[in-house]
């Protein structure tokens, strides 16, 4: 794709859903994929520099990612797709929806980054590069004891991918940290049906930010997932998929 060797997880059949992952690439073993594939065709690329996707030299900005995904959407055989973005991928999904609404059947933002909501001295999005790793995990999950990854138990390959994801995320999102100052102004261009889903216990980026995000997208719907943190698709897979499928079936 655009000269980049890309890793893509493809599952299921039916309505096409392009899934843009967050700070880590999508784990193909994740149960929410099994549940969602009964209702949709899932197309989940790893962003260039994440997972096993290549990142060419000099490809290191949100501008690059945005134009890469514009190519990606143009190449898909489907007339229209639903775009779903998690966390960091939610930022990309919002940017794409502003730019490329004519290719979208709908937009789903899940605990998404991308805009500046609060005043200049209030951090909207926890700085994961400037916070103790244990604290990042504590704030990532409703139930960290169950869900925080045990790095000691991971394989060498998984750890290398994790470090690669971390490095690419830092390159793309360092400054301004995880948002585009201009994006908020243009969210009104998103005219497709939009669902904004948030983990009620998200300590990385709070539900109030999600409500503000939804308020800037005309006609969008906001749904909280209880007993879930920054990753409702993992912590509450069933409730998450039910919410998304209801939106797809609207």
């Amino acid at each position: 794709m655009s000269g980049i060797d890309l890793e893509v997880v493809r599952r299921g059949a039916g309505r096409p859903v392009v899934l843009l992952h967050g700070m880590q690439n999508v784990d193909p073993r994740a149960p929410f994929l099994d549940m969602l594939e009964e209702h949709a065709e899932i197309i989940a690329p790893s962003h260039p520099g994440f997972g096993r996707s290549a990142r060419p030299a000099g490809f290191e900005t949100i501008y690059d990612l945005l134009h890469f995904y514009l190519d990606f959407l143009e190449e898909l055989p489907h007339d229209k797709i639903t775009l779903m973005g998690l966390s960091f991928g939610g930022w990309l999904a919002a940017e794409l929806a502003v730019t490329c609404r004519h290719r979208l059947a709908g937009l789903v933002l899940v605990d998404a980054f991308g805009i500046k909501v609060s005043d200049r001295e209030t951090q909207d999005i926890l700085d994961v590069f400037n916070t103790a790793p244990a604290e990042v995990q504590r704030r990532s999950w409703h139930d960290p004891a169950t869900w925080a990854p045990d790095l000691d138990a991971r394989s060498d390959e998984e750890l290398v991918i994790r470090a690669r994801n971390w490095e690419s995320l830092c390159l793309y999102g360092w400054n301004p940290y995880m948002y585009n100052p201009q994006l908020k102004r243009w969210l009104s261009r998103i005219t497709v049906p939009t669902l904004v889903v948030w983990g009620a216990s998200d300590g990385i980026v709070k539900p109030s930010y999600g409500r503000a995000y939804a308020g800037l997208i005309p006609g969008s719907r906001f749904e909280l997932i209880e007993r879930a943190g920054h990753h409702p698709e993992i912590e509450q897979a069933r409730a998450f998929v039910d919410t998304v499928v209801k939106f797809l079936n609207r």
Partner: protein
Amino acid sequence: MDAWWQCEVPYPFVPQEVLNAADSVRASLPSRYCDPKVAADLFEEVIDEFLLCDDLGLNVLAVEHHAGINSLLGANPLLVGILARQTRQVRILSLGTLISLRKDPVRVAEEYATADVISRGRLEIGFVKSGGTEMASNNANPVNNIERYWEAIDLVKKALSHQDGPFRWEGKHFTHRHVNIWPRPWQKPHPRMWSATGDPETAAEVGRRGMVHVLVLRGPEGTKRAYAAHRKARAEAGLPKVTTDNFAYAALGYVGDTDEEGLRVGSKLLWFLHTSLKSAPQYSRFLPGSAPPEAAPQIYRSAPRPGAGTGVMSAGQNAARLTSISTEQAMAQGILFAGNPDSVYKQVMEFYDKVGGFGHLSLVGRSGFMTHAESEKGIRLFSKEVLPRLREIKPVTVD
């Protein structure tokens, strides 16, 4: 051999229980623990020590670190400016403004050119890559730090040496529509440049550029490997061989009247390793870009699995090794030179032989709770009893 004296102006007067409770003694320790009156006394003492070096003919070296107990020198150009005016004879090495952290290398070039003119050509310009805590303190993306490092050095070099009116710079990391600095530096085409690095890739580039290559507290194996990478890169690029004058080594060092005094006072310098390196994981092993992703299996797990390792330590791993080092270990590894003048000379020369020679020795001569009087005594003894012997060692070409 030439010698340099340095003191990072550490601030050791924070209660130990505060340091124990903090996850990092750099970058994030609240500034309420730094009393400006105490800091003023420290600056006064250390600047006097630099001036004593000037009286004794011992060159001086000014570093930069941000927001930690290890160093109050967050603004290197200010100290360099003071030294440029207040010293009268010795050379002054800035090692250095943390160049990849500064947004405008042209301004850095102006600062350096000004100091070179004020000192009438006694400035040397050193560059260091900066550690993880500095990235947070300076809002600098750690992932492309090395790219910024070299581009900034290129821009500083051109700004210092270009004398034909404004030029334009449209690089990857820096753009500047109009570069034309006044004054131009005293030295032509620009002051000698140094670079501090232990990793073989950067060492190779330092070699190709013909900069003075300085290793800091690396011990014999790491130092020898870095010097070798420097020479190999020059040979592969078809560049002429360099002398030992292109190589430098910085270690903790103290000279007493007796071995007992040298070791007793010199071991106070280990505070720098034991206490001031403590750095939170987000600034060290989990900092993106601080090591290649392939190293993650060794550094992400709480304990590395047996048999893992590439043989080359990252700066963070080197720091972890140094945190628990004993006086004896530090001396055995050439991280601390301490004793009476004869012993210190012998230790330096043993290290010199182990690594294949170097033309510059920098002594971290004051750290931790060492007193002003102790520091001045060490400077006097080193300058009078050791330095003349080191000066006898002339640069030689190294294969």
